[in-house]
């Protein structure tokens, strides 16, 4: 990693290649719940490791540094999972009442999905639309947009980050 920090891209690639299986093993322990998407978590952590690559102190072993970031990402993911779980714990009677209301009000402002997506660049908006609204797979989206699957995944991640940053605050 010291050499990678000095600018050796080939060594950096091999370091990342070694890190990935370690992360899979680490997160697999927590995959008892389907809510934890191991694949996504691994990629998020890899991105975080890449973004924090300047903070690795080469005088120290690398594994505690990697797993500190991985643990942080896991906590983040579990926080989202528990928050979602909380959201779906609603009274069934309320849901029924809402379903049978004659005129349910139209969502306005940032609650409108289209408006929410408008803050994204065109390419990312299209990807999020195809993945999350149309429900296409990564491969299908990649084929439709003439992109590689990895590029679609990276663009989608960036889009999610923008959306989270923008709407979690509100």
């Amino acid at each position, binding site marked *: 990693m010291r050499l*990678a920090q000095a600018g050796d*891209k080939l060594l950096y690639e091999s370091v990342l290649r070694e890190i990935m299986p370690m992360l899979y093993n680490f997160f697999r322990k927590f995959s008892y719940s389907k809510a934890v998407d191991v694949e996504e978590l691994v990629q998020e952590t890899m991105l975080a490791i890449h973004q*924090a690559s300047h*903070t690795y*102190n080469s005088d120290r072993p690398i594994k505690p540094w990697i797993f*500190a970031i991985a643990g*942080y990402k896991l906590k983040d993911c579990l926080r989202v999972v528990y928050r979602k779980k909380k959201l779906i714990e609603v009274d069934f009677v309320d849901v029924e009442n809402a379903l049978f209301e004659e005129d349910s009000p139209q969502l306005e402002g940032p609650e409108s999905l289209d408006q929410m997506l408008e803050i994204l660049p065109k390419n990312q908006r299209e990807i999020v639309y195809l993945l999350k609204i149309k429900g296409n797979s990564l491969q299908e989206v990649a084929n439709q947009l003439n992109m590689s699957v990895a*590029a679609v995944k990276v663009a989608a991640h960036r889009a999610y980050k923008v959306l989270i940053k923008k709407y979690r605050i509100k």
Partner: protein
Amino acid sequence: MPKEVNEEFIKNLAKQGAKKPIYKPQKQMLLWTMVMIFYASLIFIFLGFRADLSQKIQDIFFDLEIFLILATSVSAAFAASFLTLPDINQKPVIKKIPFIFLFLLCAVIVLQYFMQGSSAVDDICGGSNYQCALAIVIFAIIPSLIFFVILYRAATLNSALAGFMIGLCGGSFSYFLLRLVHSTEDVTHLFMWHFIPVFFVTIISTIIAKLVVKRI
């Protein structure tokens, strides 16, 4: 996920390359210490030492107080520099040390109160007393700012605690400077207008760090 996707993902990241490392905590501390020596010298040159310093140095409580506040500041600076790294430089115990010194300092102030007596709270409210609190806040800006710049460039996983340590380091250093510049014997004044503002600086710094520092 297919293996090819991971391959491509790794290649994408590798193409960008690893970032150049930031200063190691020891180097950050060295930089901070040098700037603080220069900063303290400037303050002593412009404001001068308190008139009764030579007498006060013989007072064991004063010496203990000065030692403990400086120890709090330096240990908090160490903790802040370690907290800029995701793994706390693999020495998590460092974040507990400032609290030990802070606790001892509280004990010394309380002991001073009982041994030497003090004015009632009403007597030290109002007037120009607030200037001490203001000085604590102003003196704390530069020591804290250095670590905020480092923290912003680094990747902490605990921005609130890092902010807390930065505030504690800046606030306690400011307390140290003010004790050597401003003559005061009253323990209640010391507690209310010197010690509590240190916590005010700490809280503000925690809030700023929580809001400003980016997440990885």
